[in-house]
């Protein structure tokens, strides 16, 4: 096999790194430059800061050859700033974080991507969308309807597959930040069968959504309701629902990531993650293990935040279908055996080119989608001071 031997990881030259960053810098300028839109002073400052932040992170990815740690800065920032911007918006529009039944009946519930798989069966059986939001714009808080969110999700997913969960999901950042806090995991032995959790939640929620004619996950199990938009607790049922949200958030997003150093909500619970894994099969970008280089030291397995590598998959030279393409295993591998790969090409031939092509797509999406979330959150904070 024509395997290119990688040189030791000397930092890439500043000039070359700059050149590689140039397309992203131009894209970022297009997205965030204040000359392109009317905005308040705090919003303009926030947008410029976000633009610079995203470009600097990409530059560092190019200079250091490393993906995971720089991506993590972006991802954690998005995870932390999403509730700030969203809660502020909800409070301005509605005066409360709780969504009352009147808003639901009026179809003004903001739509996120997680209910997408829950809507398919009811729509197929009855031609009805079982979500109390609007299909077209002007329905939700953000003014964007379900059609816009589904369209954005589909376009991104076709390109990056489950990379969505590492570059676009505005929920995963909080737990990734929590997982980064401890130096070592206190809880190391995790039964590998928990990996099937997201599929079980997906199966149960899809079936219950069809039976109950409601987005069952949003109604009963979404941990992020605790930091975005809870049920207006006007009766015992509302209080039970909110209690479940808070317990799940505390356990899956705060406590378990701190104990395990894993993204436990994403790895063991999120039904959208399981649904997204199916699309990993159609994405052109993959992470592979070059078996000619692998020792195997299982450092990749230990570093994976979602347990998407096991002994069998390493022996086969691939990740499991739940791989989120975060780059942790590639960065952790001391032998450069874990590599970025483009489907249809030979494994480990020009892996850096594969990484670049993936990162251009993923980072452009991150700027467009996550960048706006970061800018929105920052602007909310800056409004307090500027």
């Amino acid at each position, binding site marked *: 096999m024509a395997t290119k031997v990688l040189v030791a990881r000397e930092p890439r030259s500043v000039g070359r790194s700059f050149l590689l960053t140039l397309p992203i810098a131009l894209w970022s300028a297009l997205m965030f430059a204040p000359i392109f839109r009317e905005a308040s002073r705090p919003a303009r400052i926030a947008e410029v800061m976000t633009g610079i932040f995203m470009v600097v992170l990409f530059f560092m990815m190019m200079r250091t050859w490393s993906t995971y740690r720089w991506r993590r800065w972006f991802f954690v920032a998005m995870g932390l700033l999403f509730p700030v911007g969203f809660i502020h918006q909800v409070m301005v529009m509605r005066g409360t974080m709780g969504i009352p039944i009147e808003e639901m009946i009026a179809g003004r519930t903001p739509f996120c991507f997680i209910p997408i798989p829950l809507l398919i069966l009811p729509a197929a*059986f009855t031609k009805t969308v079982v979500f109390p939001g609007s299909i077209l714009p002007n329905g939700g808080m953000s003014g964007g309807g379900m059609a816009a969110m589904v369209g954005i999700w589909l376009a991104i997913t076709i390109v990056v597959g489950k990379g969505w969960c590492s570059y676009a999901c505005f929920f995963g950042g909080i737990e990734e930040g929590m997982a980064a806090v401890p130096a070592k995991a206190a809880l190391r032995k995790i039964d590998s*069968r928990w990996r*099937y959790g997201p*599929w*079980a*939640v997906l*199966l*149960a929620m899809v*079936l219950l959504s*069809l039976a109950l004619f409601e987005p069952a996950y949003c109604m009963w199990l979404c941990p992020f309701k605790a930091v975005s938009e809870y049920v207006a607790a006007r009766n015992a049922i509302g209080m039970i629902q909110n209690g479940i949200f808070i317990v799940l958030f505390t356990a899956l997003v705060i406590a378990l990531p701190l104990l395990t150093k894993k993204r436990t909500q994403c790895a063991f619970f999120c039904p959208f993650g399981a649904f997204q894994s199916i699309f990993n099969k159609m994405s052109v970008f993959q992470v592979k293990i070059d078996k000619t280089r692998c020792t195997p030291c299982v450092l990749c397995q230990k570093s994976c935040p979602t347990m998407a590598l096991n002994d069998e998959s390493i022996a086969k030279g691939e990740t499991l279908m739940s791989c989120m393409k975060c780059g942790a295993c590639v960065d952790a591998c001391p032998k450069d055996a874990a590599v970025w790969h483009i489907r249809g090409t030979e494994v480990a031939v020009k892996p850096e080119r594969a990484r670049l092509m993936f990162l251009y797509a993923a980072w452009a999406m991150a700027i467009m989608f996550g960048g706006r979330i970061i800018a929105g959150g920052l602007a909310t904070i800056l409004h307090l001071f500027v």
Partner: protein
Amino acid sequence: MPAVFAFSEALILGLASGPACVASCGPVLVPSLLAERSGMRLNSRYLSAFLATRLLGYLLFAAVAWEVGALVSLPSPARSSLFAMIHLLLAGVLLRYAWSVGRACNHACGSPELVTIGGAGRHRIPGAAVLGFLTGISLCPPFVAAGVRAAEAANVAAAMLFFAVFFLGTSVWFVPFAGLGWVRRNEAVTTVARMAMVLIALYYFYAGLMTLIRRTTHGY
């Protein structure tokens, strides 16, 4: 002629209500069927047991509906209690089923038998049969609609026949589920099915409990 008309009505009502029945029974049927081993023959046996006891539930319901003049005329608290009990029973059976699947796989994975629940030895019964019966007496909307018509029948035999034909109409929609026999069963599929059963059982437990609490505190 009126008899032919009535049975045509029952069949069409069953065919038209089939998707609603599948949606209502799906949370019970799909994971428990996936938890069985693969193979068209075994899965067809599962469906046969499920549908046969579902028919039994239907006929029992038809007899009661005719006797008391349709369950819809039952006082609301009694209906709530019945509804809650069925949900609680479903939760218990699903949990037991999920546990039994684990035991069946540990001890006799090659056995071409349906997963059984219940007591020891000969007292064990296929879980499919229990689940079929419990879903057969659940008060889903099409079922209540059929109950109203059955209550108007001339005698109990006619009411039961009405429900039997209604059952045939709805059962057509269940036949495709035998195709799940083609899905290859491995640790992943069985574990996912068992975990899903536990989650669904928790929901039924909650629904049953809340109905009972509401009945106690508010009287409906």
